[in-house]
């Protein structure tokens, strides 16, 4: 049976990890990870197929750990969801409905190993059947990939992390910074484990998959991604960039704003914030006031005063509204949003701000 690869982010009270998942059912999912999580540990898992299926967040608990075994049997955890979620059923329905695309599918595989390229092409031919249903081009290094990307259009780019000269993460960063290419789905692959996963995901890959690849699963996922085209032509969703040192506050903010139709980028520290700002071209920036590295009003003032940021910048905090108003005025930023008013008010204010800015 074909299995789909989903992006999965596990969040616990101790931290979070971005990985990928298989075998989604209404009650459970298997997440590939080298994290050891005790049985019955409580987690939040965020599942998505970036650019195709909207993310959903579900509370869950660990029912078993699986050790990597035979080829194709990866190690990880089975998570059982705490309660049924209609959005999960909708995601499963989408996975079933989106089985086939009649359009030819254009793949760029950036991989320096000739044998892996040949196996990929052979397996794709077997999986997709008719040669006209998929077109695969190869680039053996990042520089050649960039030449092809500049002149061709691809439905998906698959990038190996270990490449000669510039690595795969550098290529993904460059691709995400390019206005024409930033919407292309990117799957990163590597034998490099969590170091390669962290580097490529931080660079902007949508999904990371460990080598050796289970081609059948990858191709089943590519078929889903082939339905991207209609979304590409849809009006772009406003992007909100949120800086906050609380992972929980970020997760809740992102879930609330995404449920209202916004695209959301989050950053837990200043380094991540600068990287996100360079790649996501936000329409609105929310800055938490109490960051460990610097005060939010100083960061916001610097964005407006020195970096000439011309989109609305708002302070985002739970401090008393009077103080928040004073500090946003002194920082000469667009205003503030009080966390204490809750998610509905956060969504309402963001809609209002972006409508006003349009």
């Amino acid at each position, binding site marked *: 049976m074909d299995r789909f690869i989903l992006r999965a982010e596990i969040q616990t009270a101790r931290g979070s990890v971005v990985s990928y998942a298989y075998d989604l059912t209404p009650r459970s999912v298997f997440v590939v990870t080298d994290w050891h999580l005790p049985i019955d540990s*409580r987690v*939040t898992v965020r599942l998505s197929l970036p650019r195709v299926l909207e993310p959903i967040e579900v*509370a869950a608990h660990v029912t078993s750990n699986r050790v990597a075994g035979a080829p194709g049997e990866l190690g990880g955890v089975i998570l059982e969801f705490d309660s049924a979620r209609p959005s999960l059923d909708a995601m499963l329905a989408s996975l079933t409905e989106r089985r086939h695309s009649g359009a030819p599918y254009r793949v760029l595989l950036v991989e320096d190993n000739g044998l892996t390229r040949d196996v990929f092409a052979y397996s794709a031919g077997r999986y997709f059947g008719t040669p006209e249903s998929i077109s695969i081009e190869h680039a053996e290094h990042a520089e050649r990939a960039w030449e092809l990307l500049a002149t061709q259009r691809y439905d998906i780019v698959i990038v190996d992390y270990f490449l000669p000269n510039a690595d795969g993460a550098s290529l993904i960063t460059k691709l995400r910074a390019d206005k024409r290419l930033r919407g292309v789905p990117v799957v990163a692959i590597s034998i490099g484990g969590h170091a390669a996963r962290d580097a490529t995901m931080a660079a902007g890959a949508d999904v990371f998959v460990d080598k050796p690849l289970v081609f059948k699963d990858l191709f089943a996922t590519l078929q889903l991604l082939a339905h991207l085209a209609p979304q590409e032509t849809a009006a772009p969703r406003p992007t909100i960039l949120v800086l906050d040192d609380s992972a929980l506050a970020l997760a809740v903010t992102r879930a609330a704003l995404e449920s209202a139709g916004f695209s959301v980028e989050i950053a837990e520290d200043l380094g991540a914030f600068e990287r996100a700002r360079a790649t996501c071209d936000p329409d609105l920036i929310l800055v938490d006031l109490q960051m460990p590295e610097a005060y939010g009003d100083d960061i916001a003032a610097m964005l407006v005063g020195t970096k000439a940021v011309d989109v609305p910048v708002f302070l985002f*905090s739970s401090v008393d509204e009077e103080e928040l108003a004073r500090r946003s005025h002194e920082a000469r930023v667009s205003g503030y949003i009080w966390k204490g008013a809750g998610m509905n008010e956060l969504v309402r204010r963001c809609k209002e701000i972006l409508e006003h800015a349009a």
Partner: protein
Amino acid sequence: MIEDIRGTFLHRFTSLARTRLAKSREAAGDPALLGTAVRELHSLAGEAGLLGISDVVPLARRGEDLARKLGSGEPGESLVAILDELDQIIAQLG
């Protein structure tokens, strides 16, 4: 939809809140560590506010202000009493 989100994150919130309150309690006994209580209670207030757990917000903010005051050597009410009250509210959430 917002209720769904609240339900999804509630357990994570209560678990993290207990950790934040435990750290604040440790810090409450040592004036040199009160900065930790300020940060933990500040984060707790923000997280509770977003999730609509409104009775936590003013209390956590009061604890944050008090910890800041005590850390500056000013007299004030008992921080532990506020932490006890917050613990009780969190326990009622499950």
